[in-house]
């Protein structure tokens, strides 16, 4: 029974990571109607930056903040340079640019930082287990950080003028432009925010799965599964979906299919949601008139 409880809690901890990447996906979707395939690779790149800063002697939390800022800037820059010229192009072009970005960022990471698997430090004391052996310090800490990020993002979108402007720009670009919102910059901000949230997720997951250039590939798919499960247009749904996928994945990995089929679980969830309930658990059902 203890094993089950621990699997459950470990699932919530990894679920938190999926939830934050899922949130980044949903956010970028709401702000730009893009699903960025390179999100995972960008997060890995950011995590390597963090490692470099830590190895250069900076304290963990200074490196953490610096990494988030740099990632934000990189996200904005990528939107400005790569996405803006093709914003009116067909979806196929967008997919192509994402794939190109994935190849470039993914290979650049390996090229610059090396392909060896590295240990990434955790800021939370991980000696021994807390609460009667149920949860490790890092699991607890990373869940708290994830929840804090989710809360911050929620507050930003609900209670600040800029957040309102970003939502407006995504919802109705033409009217937003008429009331003076700089829609183009809102898109860039959306990319920056998503990159920053991705970076946090990368730094939280790296101590668990170890850091190497392909670290985030599976995580991106789980996050996508979580986003779909919760409803791709609902940020809270994405968070709940992310946690649910984390628990499901851990339980299925431990008791049903074994670790080697974990990625297939993501595929099964994606296809299952799409066939049974395409709008997800909390998504708006979109009726289209034909």
């Amino acid at each position, binding site marked *: 029974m203890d094993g089950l409880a621990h699997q459950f809690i470990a699932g919530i901890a990894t679920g938190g990571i999926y939830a934050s990447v899922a949130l980044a996906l949903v956010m970028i979707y709401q702000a730009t109607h893009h*699903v960025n395939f390179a999100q995972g690779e960008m997060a890995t790149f950011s995590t390597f930056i963090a490692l470099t800063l830590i190895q250069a002697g900076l304290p963990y939390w200074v490196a953490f903040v610096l990494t988030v800022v740099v990632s934000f800037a990189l996200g904005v820059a990528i939107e400005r340079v790569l996405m803006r010229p093709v914003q009116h192009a067909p979806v196929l072009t967008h*997919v192509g*640019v994402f*794939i190109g970005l994935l190849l470039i960022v993914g290979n650049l990471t390996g*090229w610059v930082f090396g392909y060896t698997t590295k240990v990434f430090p955790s800021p939370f004391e991980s000696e021994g287990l807390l609460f009667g052996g149920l949860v490790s310090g890092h699991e607890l800490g990373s869940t708290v950080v994830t929840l804090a990020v989710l809360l911050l993002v929620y507050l930003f979108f609900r209670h600040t003028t800029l957040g309102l402007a970003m939502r407006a720009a995504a919802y109705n670009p033409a009217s937003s432009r008429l009331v003076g919102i700089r829609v183009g910059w809102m898109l860039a901000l959306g990319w920056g925010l998503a990159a920053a949230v991705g970076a946090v997720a990368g730094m939280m997951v790296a101590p668990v799965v170890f850091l190497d250039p392909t670290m985030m590939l599976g995580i991106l798919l789980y996050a996508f599964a979580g986003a779909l499960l919760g409803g*791709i247009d609902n940020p809270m749904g994405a968070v709940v979906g992310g946690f649910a996928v984390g628990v499901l994945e851990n339980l299925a990995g431990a008791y049903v299919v074994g670790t080697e*089929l974990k990625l297939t679980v993501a595929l099964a969830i994606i296809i299952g949601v799409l*066939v049974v309930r395409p709008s997800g658990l909390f998504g708006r059902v979109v009726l289209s008139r034909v």
Partner: protein
Amino acid sequence: MSATEEVPAVPVLVQAPPRSAMATWQRGALVLLGLAAALAPIFVLESFQLFQLTMAVIMALAVLGLNIVTGYNGQISLGHGAFYAVGAYATAILMSHGDWSFWATLPVSAAVCAGLGYAVGFPALRLGGLYLALTTFSLAVAVPQILKHRAIEDWTGGVQGLFLVKPDPPSWLPLDADQWMYLVALGVSAVLFLLSWNLIRSRVGRALMAIRDNPTAAEAMGMDTATLKTRAFAVSAMVTGIAGSLGAVVIEFVAPDSFGFGVSISLFVGMVVGGVASIAGSIFGGLFVLFVPNIAEEISKAAPGVIYGAILILFLFLLPDGFAGLLRRLAARWRDRAAR
């Protein structure tokens, strides 16, 4: 009365450019020339170069499969490597466990891949654009794991994979196995290219493109979009799967890790660079997929992937209709100048 007088005169019919005014003997000569160019490598190239060219032909066929569903029908698939893998494994399993001849495995592999394509095409109906891309992408990522799984290890050979042997050339042909495989790949591909060409230029092909360009209008005109889309997926998966079968016998080996999502991405890049929605573009795509990684490696030993990605983005920005589109425009300009 005056109103009728204002009706403009019947416009002079614009004459179609004399494009197809090629004499029969000229066409015949072109076909012969093309055939000679396709067969020449058998006698000219070294064994390894011929192997590479064979793989390029096979890649072209796989890109053609992707082009049918993504280029012509607008359903973005990033998972065609999965169908390629399934085709390869179908042939490998039948040949090494069942001692089937290569030719007998082709229809089975085609049927299995078409069935799988149909199955993937069904949930794909629920998804537009990016989601379909991401779902098929997850299929591509999951495939090596599924192939490695213990439950089917007896059939797939697990991580070690399966070895198989190239079919021998018929004894009346003075060719070795490599040369024969090139001919086989070329022949199978030529037939499938011809069939695809006819499919795209038929009523069904026009319907596929209509669904891509304006689904609402297509449905209003009475096209059964759901049926057409799932069948397009099935045909597309079948073509790519047959390419996988050919690839398996040419390499004489299949293993899970050679069918990672890199294959799917290569096919996608090949399609974009060769020319989206272009049959001829698929041929350029196949050549690109096979030869450019080598060239990229020569430019920079450290990061061929970076160059590969950069080429993809450059093509999307500068030549969105790919290499085939570039040739088409150059030819049009040349024809204009010749007509003047």
